[in-house]
């Protein structure tokens, strides 16, 4: 396939948290609000003159200082953020809308706070409480938490308009991005998709880490390009996979999977498009803040949700992706030391395999995985397994000899 015109540009944007578009927006007087987790509704951080930025630590090297503060038994993503903060890599942020959803990320943020690693008199950090199940009083609780811990700070420190109208406007802008990403993502359903998982990962990731108004044109142009793109005649993959699990902000992981022969057709992981890039609709009469909170809670696929309905819904959701995107298997991945996905991966990989009879690869991985030979070997073996299963199915039974 012909290379996408802006792909290299987008790839470069992902090399720094404080990339050129972030710097441009800051120069234009915009406020950069960092966040780390889907539990903090991204769209609410794009009200008025704010722009959201999902925190990453690209090109992470040594984690020595963060390891001193957080031990070597904690999630590398959390430690990488702390290490980058120690290096001064987030000094451009005007606030961090953190959530107390997972203990390790919470500690990472608290280390940044206690050590005063990000300067600025007006800089603030919130610790929003997040319910473990979806109920009406839970929605009200989360809305109240955001109102008092995030919006109040934005208003008091920076004079930001957080009104109902401002939220609705932010939702409109958010939906423009969602429509583009969704349409691009739909092409992954094709038998010979005109977009690779890696390309999609780059495009989607850019929407999380750049001011949306500055990437909209290039994304639109890319969508046009993909609409008219001709896929290679011969398929470039041996099997199709859904990736499900914890945080992945490293497109090299997707690249590694695809180099091993598995095309990534659906991305159900934190920083992925399921959920996160679906349009939000708010009724005329609804309280916009509550409506957004409800939507995020309902859409969330986080393993932290512990009601029976949500537990079952997570499994059904992945199975549906498997079916809708004509996948041959599922890769359940977990960032090493992540308690939530450690449990979920262990149990659900059994359920998917033994009860749903779907091929599953269950792996844990470090924060930066690009050069892992071990991971490559496991994925190659999985691809072979899926191929054998396909041949078995074509022959109508098990292979013997």
């Amino acid at each position: 396939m012909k290379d996408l015109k802006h792909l290299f540009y987008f790839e470069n944007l992902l090399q720094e948290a404080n990339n050129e578009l972030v710097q441009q927006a800051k120069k234009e007087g915009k406020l950069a609000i960092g966040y780390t987790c889907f539990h903090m509704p991204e769209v609410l951080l794009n009200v008025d003159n704010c722009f959201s930025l999902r925190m990453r630590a690209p090109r992470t090297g040594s984690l020595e200082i963060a390891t001193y503060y957080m031990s070597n038994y904690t999630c590398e993503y959390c430690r990488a953020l702390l290490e980058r903060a120690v290096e001064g890599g987030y000094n451009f942020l005007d606030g961090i809308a953190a959530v107390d959803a997972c203990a390790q990320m919470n500690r990472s943020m608290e280390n940044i706070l206690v050590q005063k690693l990000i300067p600025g008199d007006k800089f603030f950090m919130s610790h929003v409480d997040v319910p473990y199940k979806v109920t009406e009083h839970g929605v009200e609780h989360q809305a109240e938490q955001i109102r008092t811990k995030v919006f109040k700070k934005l208003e008091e420190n920076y004079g930001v308009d957080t009104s109902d109208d401002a939220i609705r406007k932010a939702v409109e802008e958010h939906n423009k991005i969602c429509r583009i990403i969704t349409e691009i993502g739909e092409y992954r359903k094709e038998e010979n998709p005109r977009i690779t998982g890696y390309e999609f990962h780059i495009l989607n990731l850019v929407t999380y880490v750049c001011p949306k108004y500055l990437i909209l044109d290039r994304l639109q142009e890319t969508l046009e390009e993909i609409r008219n793109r001709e896929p290679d005649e011969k398929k470039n993959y041996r099997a199709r996979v859904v990736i499900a699990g914890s945080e992945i902000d490293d497109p090299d992981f997707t690249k590694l999977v695809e180099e091993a022969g598995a095309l990534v057709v659906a991305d159900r992981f934190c920083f992925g498009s399921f959920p996160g890039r679906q349009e939000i609709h708010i009724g005329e009469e609804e309280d916009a803040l509550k409506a957004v909170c409800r939507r995020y809670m309902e859409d969330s696929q986080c393993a932290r949700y512990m009601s029976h309905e949500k537990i079952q819904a997570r499994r059904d959701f992945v199975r549906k992706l498997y079916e809708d995107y004509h996948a041959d298997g599922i890769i359940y991945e977990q960032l090493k030391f992540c308690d939530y996905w450690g449990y979920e991966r262990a149990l659900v990989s059994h359920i998917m395999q033994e009860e749903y009879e779907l091929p599953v690869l269950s792996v844990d991985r470090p924060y930066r995985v690009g050069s892992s030979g071990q991971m490559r070997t496991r994925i190659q073996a999985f691809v072979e397994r899926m191929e054998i299963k396909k041949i078995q199915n074509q022959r109508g039974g098990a292979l013997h000899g």
Partner: protein
Amino acid sequence: MDKKIEELLEKGKELKTQGSEILKKEKKTVSRAFHAWKDMDHHKGDVHTGELTTAFREWRGVKDTAYDFAKWLQVWGDMSLMIMKNPVGSVKGLWKYRWFSSYLQTPMFIDAQLTGLRGPQLRIAREHMRMIVRFCTRLLENTFKADENLNGPNALSDKIVLFDEMMPIHIMAGFPNLIGMPSQMAPVYITSLLDQQMQVHYLDETENYGLPADVCPLPSAEAGCGIAGDYPIFGKCYITSSMPCDGSVMTNIFQDRYFKLPTYPLTLPVRYLDEQAVDYAVEEIKGMIRFIEENTGETFDWDAYFEAMERYNKETEYEQEKWDVNQTAYPQITGSILAIYRELSYMADAGRDPRFLKTDERVNKIMMKAYREKNPCAKEMRHRAVVWSCPAHYYANFGNWAEQCWGIDVLIDMESMMSMKFINTEDKEESLKDIAWTYERMAMRKHTNGGYANVLDELWKVCEEFHADMVIMYSHISCKTMAGLQGLFDDQARERGIRFIWVEHDLMDPRTVSRRHMRESVNRYMRTVMHEEPVDPSLEDFDDEKEW
């Protein structure tokens, strides 16, 4: 002939001499053994290796030894009574569940907690332990009577509301016709204290299943027990909870599959200090009550609930007095007893069983008398210590060891410091707010949830209150909540000049960090940093890796 007679007489004399020598030797041996027994103070290490516990009991002077022996018999009596009440069920349970045999080690577990204790300390510890044993025997009694694995569907099972063991059980006081039972307490929690090897099997079960080995062994073992099919089956419905940590949240997905009961997850706010979080918490509690009513057909009985909460409040008062006394120059309850008892009375009973209050009354009487008489709580009190973070279940008597070996008196530990709020017993709405407050501050959660200040700043405050000069800081290597603050603890301890001993452990997995390794952390610090000699050198190093 004469010669022969002479030879025989000579041989007879020889044998007589040999016999008297043997007799002398024997006398010496008996005498040595008797003295060793009397001087057990200098051989306490042997108690922990199992060398002496099965042979004879610790010598504590005539009066204390006799008292201790009688109480030891009482423990066997309580256990035998439980078996006699349901002999068939108990035998079936022994065959069906591998964890049940661990309870045979109860008397030895208690001995380990009591090593070196004399006078009031011995009596206080024995009072606490008696109540713990009686609580456990009742728990097991109900378990084997109601277990559908052993008895099939039965009426008792239908009266049981199952609770996650990490969930305080106060609310069940409002359902006097029902029995609230913590699901994992008998198979996992208590056996992990009794027998350091017990949970290894369940941890292997979960790890073989695919769960990473880096997660906390408590929820991991809970999941493993489910995978192994080792939970008794009973109950009408199940209350799970998000307390106290991420691991506890996630082990619920395993319990959800295992128990297959209608389930209500009680999910209280993590940021519990926020004023606006109270309404949400109260709604959650109300939802739980409604759920139990709907699933059992019972109605919440406010009178019964208030009556139990009055008892609970009195127990809380007594707990406060223990802390008050320990803050003085004459602390009376040191070591691990404080936490073990408090965990059961607060979490698993919560005012429902009047026997806990009676125990508190007796303990208070002994404690206050000893305090007035300025009784020293240990042979040698060198350091006043606070224990922070969660302790190793497989080394529950670590505090006792630190006191006996190095004169480090553990005055308070994080596990004991749960909510001390009195529950309103008149106003229903206010009472539910108090319950929410109390639940939010359950064991561990009070400190590890709600922001770093609750565990970091709180430690320095507690050190001041208890006039502590030393902190034994458990580094439970799988506890990511605590690990995330390890550098800040170190930095701030240095700034404050507090002696900080890091003791690594892995909660329920002695293979990762052994008891001996835990002791070495303290030994090393005391010798190299403090330049001290042990109070009892026999306790400094011994091998107990294969012991209970």
